């Protein structure tokens, strides 16, 4: 029973969104929700109109999906590229240097990003980064780094230290130890960190809104917001719902894919010698 409630609690809004996206645009406000009202039963009045509208728009909706994917992948890659060596280096340190840095990172990851974005906007203007899709990856990586380093450092600390000792004695240098011994064992942690970073950049709104103004370069969150506010007179609930459904689909797919990678991460990340 509790499980059923929990399931309904978490899936309910999503299902409602999905339902709305498949109903005629005015059904929400006209009171015709297909639940036995004057318009007919639950089996009538389904439509893909909201979706076709989105995909036929200029620029078509998939363009925003692509933009978000590009920014997300670039941001995630940049984050991992920096976070892995940082975490490794940090783990090598002892005493006050390590714990001091960790405390700073925790503080940084707790900092409310909303306070940053005006300053970031100023930077973007000065450096000419506005309206560059890939430039968005920079603040995303910067904002994700503290958490990514913390997660990866914790994962490194969980590995038995003798493994690295053994590799040292076998003559492996720091980079070789990272490449052949530590990274394969960190694969599950790297995968879950990557997902978190990707989710963050996929749904990030204020920076995307302020840095990008040209329509074809908008990322998903900014684009959806724009759809929601496209008319002064009505709120296009149908189109809005369809956009959120389309926007969530890649995430759902990604999580399903990565879930397997996390579970079997150890075997998948193994390096054949």
């Amino acid at each position, binding site marked *: 029973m509790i499980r059923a409630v929990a399931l309904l609690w978490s899936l309910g809004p999503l299902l409602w969104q999905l339902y709305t996206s498949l109903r005629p645009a005015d059904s929400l406000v006209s009171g015709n929700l297909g639940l036995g009202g004057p318009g007919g039963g639950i089996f009538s009045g389904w439509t893909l109109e909201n979706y076709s509208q989105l995909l036929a728009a200029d620029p078509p909706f998939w363009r925003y999906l692509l933009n978000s994917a590009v920014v997300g992948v670039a941001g995630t890659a940049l984050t991992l590229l920096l976070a892995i060596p940082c975490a490794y280096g940090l783990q090598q340190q002892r005493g006050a240097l390590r714990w001091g840095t960790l405390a700073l990172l925790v503080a940084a990851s707790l900092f409310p990003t909303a306070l940053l974005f005006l300053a970031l906007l100023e930077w973007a203007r000065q450096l000419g980064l506005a309206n560059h899709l890939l430039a968005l990856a920079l603040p995303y990586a910067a904002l994700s780094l503290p958490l990514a380093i913390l997660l990866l450092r914790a994962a490194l600390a969980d590995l038995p230290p*003798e493994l690295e*000792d053994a590799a040292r004695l*076998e003559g492996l240098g720091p980079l070789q130890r990272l490449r052949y011994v530590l990274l394969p*064992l960190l694969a599950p942690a790297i995968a879950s960190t990557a997902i978190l970073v990707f989710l963050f950049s996929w749904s990030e709104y204020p920076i995307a809104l302020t840095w990008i103004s040209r329509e074809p370069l908008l990322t998903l969150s900014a684009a959806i917001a724009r759809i929601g506010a496209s008319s002064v007179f009505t709120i296009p609930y149908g189109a809005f719902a369809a956009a959120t459904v389309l926007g969530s689909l890649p995430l759902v797919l990604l999580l399903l894919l990565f879930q397997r990678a996390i579970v079997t991460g150890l075997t998948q990340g193994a390096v054949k010698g």
Partner: protein
Amino acid sequence: MSALELRQLGRRVGGRSLLSGLNLRVEAGECVALLGPSGCGKTTTLRLVAGLESPEEGGRILLGERDITAEPAGRRRVAMVFQSYALYPHLNVTANLALGLRVRGVPPQERERRIDAVLELLQLAELRERRPAQLSGGQRQRLALARALLSQPALMLLDEPMSNLDAQLREELRPELRRLLCGGEAPVLYVTHDQQEAIGLADRLALLEAGRLQQVGTARELYEQPRNRFVASFLGRPALNLLPPRDGRQLGLRPEHLRPVLEGGLAARLLRREWWGSQQLLWLESEQGELRMMLPAEQAPPDALRLGWERHHELWFDAATGERLVRSP
């Protein structure tokens, strides 16, 4: 091949001395067991010699003519078998062995030949494709040993390599380990807290306590001529009986040296009998405190008995310092 020599080796961490003034020489082909209770500095010594930690109290590590004190771990040509084995969990048996050779630039054919040979030697050839998690405890231990032997080290270090195995397997593996390790060309330093293992494997024992070397010698020398109270009580099972100190001196008597006598000696009352196979261990209460005594299993001791011993079995110690007083009074 050449001997290992440790000179005044010490290590201090946060004001606490883990090891100090250690002098030890291990000849080429000799196996020395570093023996002592937990936390006595055995593992610290190994890690210093391996180069995984650096001696902060000075001291030097010589391998033949080479002073390796400041050399990085990877260049010392030292192999180590870890207590946890430290096998790479993501690599199968062959890959576990190959990684070190590959990094050192051993050509593939040579690599394969050496791996085949060592797998054959340690009876692991059937298990090539297995990952460490798919091996039994004994097989993992053999793989760890194989990895160490494979690098043809100038010095072999083992850190309690059998502590994760059950007692029976440990005993079975001891002769095999001795055959593989000792009598080779490299000196072997073997850390253990198990005296049985140390006696069975090593040519000489080096007994450590609280970061200080207490005595070095063959098992028999340490047993018969212990330098101090610690050595005397650490070595030998059941442990030495220490009588209460008197006049600044303390008498130690080994349980196996006590025997029942008809008159004279020490009066004692039987508390408990423990059956040890061909022997039995008696727990006795006397005016000198609780005593242990070994007796052949078939003898049935009376509840009250008198204990005697030979004068030459007496071990006298300075009550304050614990040093052995060689001339018994």
